């Protein structure tokens, strides 16, 4: 990274790389400490690791039928990580290994954020503030530890952003930026909503004379990268829906069909409605995790947008969260992790706004002929960081992040299966345990559980037939988490729901239960069944 050149006289301590290394150390500590134990392994994490496992072990893009839910770039990368890092067990379970990969990507993202802030302001204290918020905010840490497509997408998004700022007016970096943006889009389609910010950034960072070449080049390269996904589907004959004019008559999955379904997923009203998903998610998660980043960041983003009228390069920093906000405000489905791509930009917006406020204060002091700040700009930013840090410490979520152990029971449940059930047992599970059970820990001495399946995938009749689990009696055991029970009841997911209703608890690890399906007995009235909740 080519950072600003420094006068020869100054000590090496003033080199911009020094604060960056410190920040990376802080970030590493904040993210790595207790990362094995918090947060809970969720189903998405299990799913991506499962599909990365499938890429390596079966050569397919999914362990089940690949339905084009997301483009596979995210778990292809995880698979590549497993290959280069020495297998599934290098850092514990496959999930632990994948979390290490996410941590490395996060460190990369942090460095990129530092680079972006330096490019925008040439001020180390602003860059430091942005990165510290990004590194230690409980909102950031809680989500960024997860094996999540958004976390991977953020890395590519920031890389693309940085490349546009780096060595401006250079066509080569425009091409690279387009390539990386294409990868971001392929990692998680929601990157699409940030396009306005990026198009604007390309516009302002290209010289007038090269804009006509630069912008079409950027768009064409990014679109080409994205279109490889469509090409893949087309080559597979899985682009158009079965039964449509171009889709043929045979039964098959379809990219277009899946995306139309995704687009039709609705929430419960726009943000004008205070009961909407947006506000409940904001209240339950974002605001309760970190008010500095969520409220302060939103205000700062607006401030940066306003400042963007003069400082053109500031505008995209505010536009990214704004785009995301507008996307969520439309009233569709809102998940708590949707906030992830906005986090670095909210941190940066706060830092940029602080920088502008410091500039203003300095001007004010010089106008009334006061001396410069006694402690200097670093001092003020330092005080601010300490203040925010104290606030973070006072939030209960911080203690959770660094002391709670939410995965121990999940691990114990898997271990129980390995120790107590024969290898061919037909088990329906919560998604997190999939890769570990299918691969089999080395300590299990070659034992694995190929007939273990995820209840969501098993709700598909074709999959039921292929896996030989068409009715609840085919199921022998269940590994059940609370969210799984909710899903089963809400969505009527058979045969798992019936199996669950005919099961009894055999082991319980806090919230995770192992249940045996009682196939030998005749149907029981529902009231007799142990509900286990």
């Amino acid at each position, binding site marked *: 990274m080519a950072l600003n050149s420094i006068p020869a006289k100054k000590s090496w301590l003033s080199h911009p790389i020094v604060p960056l290394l410190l920040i990376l150390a802080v970030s590493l500590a904040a993210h790595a400490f207790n990362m094995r134990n918090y947060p809970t392994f969720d189903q998405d994490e299990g799913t991506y690791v499962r599909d990365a496992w499938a890429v390596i072990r079966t050569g397919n893009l999914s362990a089940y039928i690949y339905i084009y839910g997301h483009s596979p770039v995210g778990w292809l990368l995880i698979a590549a990580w497993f290959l280069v890092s020495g297998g599934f067990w290098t850092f514990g379970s496959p999930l632990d290994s994948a979390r290490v990969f996410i941590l490395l990507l996060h460190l990369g993202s942090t460095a990129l954020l530092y680079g972006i802030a330096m490019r925008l302001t040439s001020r180390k204290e602003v860059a430091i503030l942005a990165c510290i918020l990004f590194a230690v905010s409980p909102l950031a840490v809680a989500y960024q530890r997860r094996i999540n497509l958004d976390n991977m997408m953020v890395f590519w998004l920031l890389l693309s952003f940085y490349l546009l700022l780096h060595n401006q*007016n*250079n*066509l*080569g970096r425009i091409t690279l930026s387009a390539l990386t943006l294409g990868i971001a889009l392929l990692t998680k389609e929601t990157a699409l909503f940030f396009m306005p910010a990026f198009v604007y950034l390309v516009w302002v960072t290209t*010289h*007038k*004379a*090269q804009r*006509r*070449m*630069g912008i*079409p*080049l950027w768009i*064409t*390269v990014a679109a*080409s990268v994205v279109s*490889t996904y469509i*090409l*893949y589907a087309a*080559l*597979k004959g899985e682009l158009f829906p079965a039964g449509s004019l171009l889709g043929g008559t045979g039964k098959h999955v379809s990219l277009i069909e899946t995306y139309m379904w995704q687009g039709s997923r609705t929430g419960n009203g726009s943000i004008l409605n205070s009961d909407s998903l947006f506000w409940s998610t904001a209240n339950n998660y974002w605001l309760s995790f970190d008010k500095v980043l969520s409220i302060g960041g939103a205000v700062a983003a607006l401030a940066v947008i306003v400042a963007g009228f003069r400082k053109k390069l500031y505008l995209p920093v505010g536009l990214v969260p704004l785009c995301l906000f507008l996307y969520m405000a439309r009233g569709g489905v809102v998940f708590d992790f949707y906030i992830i791509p906005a986090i670095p930009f909210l941190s940066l917006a706060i830092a940029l706004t602080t920088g502008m406020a410091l500039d203003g204060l300095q001007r004010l002091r010089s106008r009334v002929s006061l001396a410069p700040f006694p402690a200097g700009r670093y001092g003020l930013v330092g005080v601010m960081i300490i203040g925010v840090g104290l606030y973070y410490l006072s939030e209960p979520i911080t203690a959770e992040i660094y002391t709670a152990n939410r995965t121990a029971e999940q691990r114990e449940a898997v271990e129980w299966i390995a120790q107590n059930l024969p290898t061919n047992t037909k088990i329906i599970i919560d998604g997190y345990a999939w890769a570990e059970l299918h691969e089999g820990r080395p300590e299990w001495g070659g034992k694995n559980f190929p007939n273990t399946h995820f209840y969501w995938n098993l709700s598909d009749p074709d999959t039921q037939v292929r896996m030989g689990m068409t009715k609840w009696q085919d199921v022998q055991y269940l590994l059940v988490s609370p969210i799984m029970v909710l899903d089963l009841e809400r969505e009527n997911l058979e045969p798992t729901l019936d199996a669950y209703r005919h099961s009894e608890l055999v082991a319980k690890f806090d919230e995770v239960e192992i249940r045996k399906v009682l196939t030998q007995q005749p149907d029981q009235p529902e009231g007799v069944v142990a509900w286990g909740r």
Partner: protein
Amino acid sequence: MTIGSLVLVLYFLLSAAMSAQSVFRLYMMLYAWRDPDQLLESQEPQSYPAPQKSFTALLPARHEERVIQQTIQRVYDSIYPKDLLEIIVICESGDTGTIDKVNEKIAQMGNPANVRLEIFEDRPINKPHGLNKGLAVAKNEIVVVFDAEDEPHAKIFLAANAVFSGSDARVLQSGVQLMDYDNHWFSVLNVLEYFFWFKSSLHFFHRLGFVPLGGNTIFLYREDLLSLGGWDEKCLTEDADLGVKVCRARLPLQIIYADAMVTKEETPTNTGAFIRQRTRWCQGFLQIFLKGEWRQLPSLTSKLLALYVLVFPLVQALFMALLPVSFFLATIKLPVPLVMFLYIPLYLLFIQSVMQVTGLYEFTEAHGFKIPFRSAIVSLATFLPYQWLLGYAAGRAVYREVKGQTNWEKTGHVGAHRREEPKAVPAPAMPMPAVPAVPARDLRLKPEGVEDIRVGNHEHLEPGESLWR
């Protein structure tokens, strides 16, 4: 390993090479835009230093009776002191039509001392021989070549003077540009080829140390030309050959491409003429390649580049011929990732064609033409046919070289890039292609802005900083 899988592996390697070559081609296409400093060179300078250098313009002409008079006038009218400018038209003695027209023009101009006709009788009858004849009698310090149908810019000598007096440059290549982008189906891509070649690729070649010079608007010191032995009379592309010699001798070279200052030319009159011209170029490059002088270029990079430039048309022909194979392979049962790999060259070609459309807009804007909506579509639609046409010409060149057919298949000119309607003179019955009298169109919607400067009066030109480097 079966034969089938071996062929497949080879094809994949070839496909990888195609991708690499496409990336390289994109890079040299867009090289000029990679940073704006380079692009600023493309603007016409605001002021010029006072004229110091003297120039001899060589105008070799053969069966150019329709355009030669205008060209002489145009070069003569250049804004440069007449005592520092010499014009030599060179004709073969049998070409009485052109000779008459030249004499008529000189008489009409009042027999100026600095315009002369040089007639040669010996063989071979070709452009390099004519150029050598002209060189032998040239008097001025710097020699420049124009083709008979060229439309050099009025200030080209001022610009060249600025380069030569302001730097240690010994050789100057200024931009040449085909203008009639909507004349034939292949015109738009032909025009764009020139546009990217002169505006961008040559700069890239320059940096790597080997520049295949163009056939005209090339300025050299007379003494350098003489010591290099002039032009190779056996070579079909004496211009590119001179480029090898110049680079071998490490003569400091300068390339300028200012949209406003390009020497304007026309595309070949029809597909046949286009193929013949391209065949000649390919064959000429092949000759230079076989001659092997390029192996003495100064650095490994320049040698590799020369190798690439000289055999590129053949390689490109092969690749283009293979494109349909990729489509075919996509239909047989191959693993999807492998098929996707075969698509990479197609993606790169797609990006290339989009950049060409963009270049078209840039080109038409620079010259004040109307928005080329139709031509943009044409350029996309003809992209592959054009490549195949080039491939055909390349194949033809190899065939002719192998058969030992090394005569010129000259390109006919009707002045389609000219403002005025050319006089409809019947095509001469000569071994050159029959030239249909195509009505010329006025392509220039914007006045060039040279008329307001009185020719020959240099007092208003400030000696000062030039934009040329």
